[in-house]
């Protein structure tokens, strides 16, 4: 018997925007399903329908049926489905309730009425499974995004759910941590629906693929058949989508020189120490390295948002910085005004920038009405519109679907070719770069700031 059955599901949010249209499928126990599709296509909404949050929490117009473990989500509150279903949402910071990690993992167990004697052992087991046992007594506000994502997964796994819904759960993890995260998920034994923009990993893990576009289910197939369909219909989703870099211009003028840079937050140990970096016009340089290796810090120093504790910074021209949190580009009432902020209200340039990132339709929309992936693109447009000499992008592919990632890659090459420079802080090896610089976590494999430079492609 199917664990979950979705039949003829259509849903529109109260704003009237249709999110899902006539979707039907079933989930068998133990299946691992990769849920793919462009950003804003309805993947998150579909996951929320499976957990009952749609329509109970969001309102809107709902038709069709979703039955999970024999219970119709129209008649059962999401809280009653909790335990049978567990969710990990996109942004870990927005789902943390308690102050201390151990209590956070215990929160769901307490709500479900778990016998008190079982709660702490289950909390410890779940934290150990995700490799976060050492975080049990830490305050949640002190954790990095990656650590928080593991704690959120532990909170979900502690419930021992039959159906585990994961909405881009590795967006803040480096490659190695993302692999470990997904391996942990696979071992849980639950039926898993995984919405993920790192398609390669999702397909390796999955037994079945669903592809959603504009609210419609276009593909429901086993992985092998799904790969064939994707290769034929949506090639960006099965690799071979990254354009090759152009030859590096002979020797452009230097736009940035960092020498002997060291920086620490407060009294903590240095995040970067003794880093040298030159960037010339026409270049794309990628900073790589695991969580905590100082990529973001170095990007902020390069763009002038942070002053180093030691070392010198020489900049030629303007440097703009794109934060990895798209929730910071919500200052104005419309997307157009938000983008125009960097160009003194020049709406024409703002329009062109929005069109370049595929948001031509969103001129008059409030930035908060956009989906997570759309906000990422809005943020990119809001920074790129100023055409700075050095464009610093911090995790620019977070939340981007493969098609948008391909467009971004092409745009970056075009940007560099126009005589400007790009500095990327990224976990994503798929982005084009003339040089990749590997940063190390201080105190681990190598001294802080140690790096390996190689020419890519």
């Amino acid at each position, binding site marked *: 018997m199917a664990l979950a059955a979705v039949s003829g599901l259509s849903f529109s949010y109260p704003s009237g925007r249709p999110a899902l249209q006539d979707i039907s499928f079933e989930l068998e126990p133990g299946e691992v399903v990769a849920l793919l599709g462009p950003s804003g296509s309805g993947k998150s909404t579909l996951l929320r329908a499976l957990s009952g949050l749609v329509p109970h*929490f969001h309102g809107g117009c709902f038709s069709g049926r979703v039955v999970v473990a024999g219970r119709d989500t129209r008649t059962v509150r999401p809280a009653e489905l909790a335990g049978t279903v*567990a969710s990990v*949402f996109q942004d870990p910071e927005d789902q943390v309730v308690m102050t201390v990690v151990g209590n956070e993992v215990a929160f769901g167990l307490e*709500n479900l009425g778990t016998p008190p004697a079982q709660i*702490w052992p289950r909390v410890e087991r779940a934290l150990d499974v995700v490799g976060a046992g050492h975080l049990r007594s830490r305050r949640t506000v002190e954790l990095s995004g990656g650590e928080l994502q593991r704690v959120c997964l532990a909170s979900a796994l502690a419930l021992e759910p039959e159906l585990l819904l994961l909405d881009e759960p590795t967006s803040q993890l480096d490659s190695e941590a993302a692999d470990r995260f997904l391996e942990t998920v696979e071992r849980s034994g639950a039926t898993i629906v995984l919405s993920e923009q790192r398609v390669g990993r999702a397909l390796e893990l999955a037994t079945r693929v669903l592809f959603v576009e504009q609210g419609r289910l276009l593909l429901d197939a086993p992985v092998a058949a799904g790969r064939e369909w994707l290769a034929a219909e949506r090639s960006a989703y099965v690799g071979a989508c990254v354009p090759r870099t152009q030859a590096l211009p002979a020797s452009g003028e230097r736009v940035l020189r960092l020498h002997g840079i060291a920086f620490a937050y407060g*009294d903590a140990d240095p995040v970067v120490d003794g880093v040298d970096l030159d960037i010339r016009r026409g270049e794309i340089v990628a900073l790589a390295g695991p969580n905590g290796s100082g990529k973001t810090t170095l990007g902020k120093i390069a763009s002038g*948002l942070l002053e180093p504790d030691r070392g010198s910074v020489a900049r030629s021209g303007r440097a703009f910085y794109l934060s990895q949190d798209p929730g*910071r580009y*919500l200052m104005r009432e419309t997307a157009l005004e938000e983008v125009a902020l960097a160009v003194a209200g020049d709406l024409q340039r703002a329009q062109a920038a929005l069109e370049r990132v595929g948001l031509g339709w969103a001129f008059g929309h409030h930035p908060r009405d956009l989906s997570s992936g759309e906000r990422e693109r809005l*943020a990119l447009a809001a920074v790129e519109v100023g055409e700075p000499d050095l464009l610093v992008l911090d995790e620019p592919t977070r939340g981007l679907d493969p098609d948008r990632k391909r467009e971004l890659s092409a745009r970056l090459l075009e940007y560099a070719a126009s005589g400007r420079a790009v500095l990327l802080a990224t976990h994503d090896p798929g982005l084009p770069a003339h040089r990749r610089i590997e940063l190390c976590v201080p105190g681990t494999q190598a001294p802080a700031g140690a790096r390996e430079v190689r020419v890519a492609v």
Partner: protein
Amino acid sequence: MSPGPAAALLAAVGAAALMADRLAAVAALAVVLLVVCLRAPAQRRAVYLFGAISTGIGVFVLSPFLWSSPEGTVLWAGPTIPVVGPLDLTTDELYEAGLNGLRLTALGLAFSAYALLLDHDRLVAAAGFARRSALAVALATRLVPSLERDAAGLSESVRGRGVALKGARGYAALLSPLVAGSLERATTLAEAMEARGFGRSASTRAPRVRWTTRDHLVLVVAAALIVAGALWL
């Protein structure tokens, strides 16, 4: 010390500071609370201490001009302002301003110590009869650092686009997105809580450490402080 008695003690110190009439007594309570707050990490405590102390200074500076006392020595006699009346400064007004400023500072510091140093989760767990309210208070307490982080992020996003935030008007532009962001976060958090079974009947509690003799003693001290504040300080 368990968070319940600790919260009761902080509330008692705050209440005693409000009820006490002697400047030295209120100042001593404020200093004790300041020392307690200094145990929190420097980065986290800065905004709380600034809020508590600047509020007290504000009251000290403004109140002599908003409240007039016929008693004490006149230190300065100013003009008479329509509606407000004569502007002057007496020793009695200065004493009252200092007392009120210190009272407010002590109250702010008591809240700061509560926000910075207490384990709110255990406080929520201890509140068996009003868990929802306790959870709401704990979440509201986290609002200050969240807003601080959001404001820094928004400001950084603007500066990262080559736009400078200048003056009060520049920073005032952050208010609207900050409020909207808080509301959005509240909605997302409520959704996450619902998805984790919050609000179901027959919930249980993870076993917690029992109160020690010291915890009971702290409760007695807290009660004594309130009485002392009302009668002797």
